[in-house]
C-alpha cells in the first residue's frame, strides 16, 4: 500500500469535506427514517435499505416512463416509498412489534425478496438515470462537483426541516412523539396507536425512497444500492443515541465526513474499519451515543 507522505493537503481536505457532507446528508436522511420507526415502534427495520433501493428504481422508472422532469420523479419515488412503508407496516412489522428476533428474520426475507425481485424485473445490469442537467459540473478553483451534489443537500435540508415542523407542530406529529415516550399517550391526543404506526412507517418509507431517488442520478441504480447506506445509517442512529431525529442527522453527517476525510490519511480499504472503530470508541466513552438519553423500558 503505497501512500504519499506530503504536506497537509488543504485542498483535498476541503474537497473531501464537500463530498463527505453530501454523502453524510444521504446517510442522515436514511437514518432519520430508521430512527422514527425505532423511536415510535421499537422496530429495527433492516429492510430500510431495500426501500432506499426501491426509491432508486422508482425514480428510474418515473424518468423513463412517466415524466422526464426530475422533481416529478422525486415526488413519484417518495410517494411510492410511502406506499411501500404502509404495506410493510400493515402486513409484516405491525405483527412483529414486540419480537426483535423475528424483525431480523423478516427484514432478511424482505431484503432477499426485494433484491432478487428487481433482478427478475429489471435485469442484472445497473441502471443509469439519464439527467444530464443534474450531472453538470460546477467548478470552484480546483474543486469540482455536480449540480446533483447541491440538489441532494437542498432536498435533505428541506426534508429534515419539514419533518421537524411536522413533528413539533402537527397533531399527528405530536402523537408520534408522544408514542415514542409511551404508546398509550397517543390516545390522549385522540389518535389510535395503529394509525400512528402506519403514518410512521409511511413517513419512514418516503424518506428512504427519497434518499435512493436522490443518489440514483449521481451514481447507479442496482439491487445492492441500499446495503452500504443501511450499515452507515445504523451506525448513524447509534452514534446519535437511538432516539432523536437530530441525533440521527448529526450522526449521519459525522459519518459522511469521517469516512471521506479518513481516506486521505488511511488506506482506502480500511475506510469502513475506521468508521466502525470510531463507533465502538464513541460508545465506550458515551454508552448511549453522542446524544442519547435512557430508552423507555430500560433501567
Amino acid at each position, binding site marked *: 500500500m503505497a501512500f*504519499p507522505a506530503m504536506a497537509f*493537503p488543504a485542498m483535498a481536505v476541503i474537497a473531501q469535506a464537500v463530498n463527505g457532507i453530501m454523502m453524510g446528508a444521504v446517510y442522515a436522511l436514511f437514518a432519520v427514517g430508521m430512527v422514527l420507526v425505532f423511536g415510535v415502534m421499537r422496530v429495527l427495520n433492516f429492510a430500510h435499505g431495500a426501500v432506499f433501493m426501491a426509491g432508486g428504481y422508482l425514480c428510474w422508472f418515473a424518468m423513463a416512463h412517466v415524466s422526464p422532469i426530475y422533481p416529478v420523479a422525486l415526488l413519484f419515488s417518495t410517494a411510492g416509498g410511502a406506499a411501500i412503508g404502509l404495506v410493510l407496516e400493515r402486513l409484516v412489522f405491525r405483527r412483529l412489534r414486540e419480537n426483535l428476533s423475528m424483525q431480523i428474520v423478516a427484514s432478511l426475507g424482505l431484503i432477499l425478496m426485494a433484491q432478487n425481485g428487481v433482478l427478475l424485473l429489471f*435485469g442484472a445490469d445497473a441502471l443509469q438515470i439519464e439527467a444530464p442537467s443534474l450531472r453538470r459540473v460546477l467548478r470552484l478553483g480546483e474543486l469540482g462537483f455536480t449540480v446533483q451534489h447541491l440538489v441532494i443537500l437542498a432536498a435533505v435540508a428541506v426534508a429534515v426541516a419539514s419533518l421537524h415542523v411536522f413533528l413539533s407542530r402537527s397533531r399527528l406529529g405530536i402523537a408520534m412523539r408522544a408514542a415514542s415516550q409511551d404508546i398509550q399517550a397517543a390516545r390522549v391526543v385522540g389518535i389510535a396507536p395503529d394509525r400512528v404506526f402506519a403514518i410512521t412507517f409511511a413517513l419512514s418509507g418516503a424518506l428512504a425512497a427519497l434518499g435512493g431517488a436522490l443518489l440514483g442520478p449521481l451514481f447507479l441504480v*442496482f439491487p*445492492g444500492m441500499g446495503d452500504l447506506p443501511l450499515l452507515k445509517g445504523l451506525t448513524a442512529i447509534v452514534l446519535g443515541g437511538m432516539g432523536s431525529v437530530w441525533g440521527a442527522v448529526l450522526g449521519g453527517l459525522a459519518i459522511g465526513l469521517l469516512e*471521506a476525510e479518513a481516506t*486521505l490519511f488511511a488506506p*482506502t480499504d480500511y475506510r*469502513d474499519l475506521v468508521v466502525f472503530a470510531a463507533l465502538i470508541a464513541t460508545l465506550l466513552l458515551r454508552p448511549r451515543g453522542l446524544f442519547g438519553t435512557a430508552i423507555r423500558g430500560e433501567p
Partner: protein
Amino acid sequence: MRYAYLAVATALLAPAPGFSQAPKPVVLGIVTAQTGPLAAAGRFQMNGFAMALDALNRDGGIEIAGQRRPVALKVYDTHCSPAEGASAMERLASVDRAAMVLGELCSPAVAAETPVAQDNSVPFVITVPTAENLTLSGNPWVFRVNADNNQLNQALGRYVVEKGLAPLAFIAWNNDAGRGGVRSMEALLGASAKVAYTGYFNVGEVDFSAHVSNIRRAGARSVMLFMDEEPGALAIRQLRDAGLGVQLIGTLAMGSARFLARLDAKYLAGMMQYNAFPPSAPQPRIRAFDDQYRARFKEESHGFAAQSYDALMLAADALHRAGTTTDGEAVRKALAATSYDGVIGHIAFDAHGQAAPPVYVTQWCDDGTRKIIFPAELASACGGG
C-alpha cells in the same frame, strides 16, 4: 435452468433417427452467478454458453462413439459463495451426472469447487476468474480457457514502462478480481515503474471522490482501473469531472460499446485497456461471433461470452475425441490434449491446464471507436478494436 429446458426442447424437436430410441442427451454442468453483485457478468457468461449450445444442437449435438447426441445444460447459481459452489459441483457431478462442468466467476468459489470436481473425476473448465493460483494447485481436473492476471497484465505492464506512464495509480475493487489484478501488476512492474497510490473500494460502492483527491495529491500520471464497467464508468466520470487529465488504463470490460454508452467519447478518448477479446477487431472469427451475438442479444459481444462460448465448443470437441461421456479420466485426457481454434484465438492447455489465448491492448479514439495497439502485428485502425 431456462437453457436446460431449451436444450430438452431442441432434443425433442430433432428428427428421430430411424426407429431406434432417441439418443440420450449429453449433460454438461454450468456454475455461474445469476444473483448477487456479479449477476450482470454472469449474464454475459450465460449468453456465450447459450450460443454454443444452439450451435452444437443445430448440428444434432456431439458425435460420441459414432452416435450424435444432443447437449443439455444444467445451470446452477453459486453467487460467488464457496459453500454453494461446492454443493452445486457435487450435485452436477453425482446427481446430474454431468460429463464436464464449465464456468464460474469468482476465485473463492472455484477454490471450493475444484477439489469436489477432483473427488468425482469430473473435468472443470474455468471461463472467467483470473487468479493465477487457480490452475497452480496441482489438480489435473482443472482447466482454464481465459488468460490469468499475469497474462492479461503483461502486455499492458510493458506498455506502461515503455511509454513512461509511471508514476501509476490503482483504483480497484476490494474483491478477488481487483486485489488480484493489483497484486499481479505490482509484481510484474517490480522496480521498473513507481506506484504512487493504491485505492480499493467495496463492490457496490459508488463514490470515488476520495480516490480522486488522493490521485491528484500523489501526482500520478496514469490511473489503472481494476473493476467492471459499471463502477468503471462512475470512476472515470468522477476523475474527469474533477479535472484530472491522467492517462486512463482499464480492463477488458471497458473496451466496449456498452461502456461508451454509460459515458461518452470525450471521457474516453485516449484511454487504453487490456483486452482478451476486442469485439470490433477485423479478424474474421471475431467478426462472425460478434455479428451472431448482435443478432441474438441486440448488443455488442463481450469477452466473457466469447470465452464461455469457446469453452463449451472445445468441451464438445474433447468429448467427441474421448468417445465417452462417462469415463472421466478419458475425457480429462482428451481435454488436456486440446488444440482448438476458438473465437478468442488458439486454445491449448499447458501442464497446469492453463491456456494462453492472445491478449490485446486497445485504445479509445476521439470519435468513440477503438483500435488495437498491441500486439503490433494485429494493430488496427480506429473502428477495429
